[in-house]
């Protein structure tokens, strides 16, 4: 009795989209908060993200918040630097202008430090969102 050989169709594995945009959008979004959305024509979202992150960062500086330098000391200082670096271009410009030497002389100066860290962390989330849009995971 002849056996019929049935060939199973192997599912086509979809490669993750590695278009230029999936690299460029997060990179530009990190450097300029919100720009990762703007270059993908998400105008309103991009402007809202840009406004939120930039205003928060600037308010932090105006409140005499401290900008963390690269360091290998206390774990909280290291984490502070990781948060700050999320703001990308804002952090680079601030360091270039040698600003952010806030001394905690009053309670809101400590708020300023936290504002700057959180602005960077929010920008990390925004960068991840820009990447998801670029690869088509999110509209």
């Amino acid at each position, binding site marked *: 009795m002849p056996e019929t050989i049935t060939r199973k169709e192997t599912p086509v594995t979809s490669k993750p989209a590695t278009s230029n945009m999936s690299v460029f959008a997060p990179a530009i979004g990190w450097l300029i908060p919100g720009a990762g959305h703007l270059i993908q024509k998400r105008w309103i*979202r991009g402007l*809202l*993200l840009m*406004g*939120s*992150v930039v*205003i*928060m960062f600037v*308010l932090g500086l*105006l*409140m*005499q918040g401290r900008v963390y330098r690269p360091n290998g000391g206390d774990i909280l200082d290291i984490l502070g630097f990781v948060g700050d670096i999320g703001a990308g271009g804002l952090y680079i410009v601030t360091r270039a202008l040698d600003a952010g030497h806030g001394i905690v002389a*009053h*309670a*809101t100066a400590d*708020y300023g430090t*936290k*504002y700057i860290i*959180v*602005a960077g962390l*929010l920008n990390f*989330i*925004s960068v*991840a*969102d820009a990447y998801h849009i670029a690869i088509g995971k*999110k*509209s």
Partner: protein
Amino acid sequence: MILTHFNAALLFSIFASTVFGITQREGARDQFRYGLYCFAMFMGGLLVAGWVMWALRH
């Protein structure tokens, strides 16, 4: 620039809620609703924490 504790927390809530709303949901309506939800949670937590601290002090 010196803000009161409440104003600092209020501004923080507005900006964080905006980013959370946009990034954690799809569709303008859901994004807006989630942003409002986060803002309400921030402000609710702020008021509860404030009253708890007041109660501990008195």
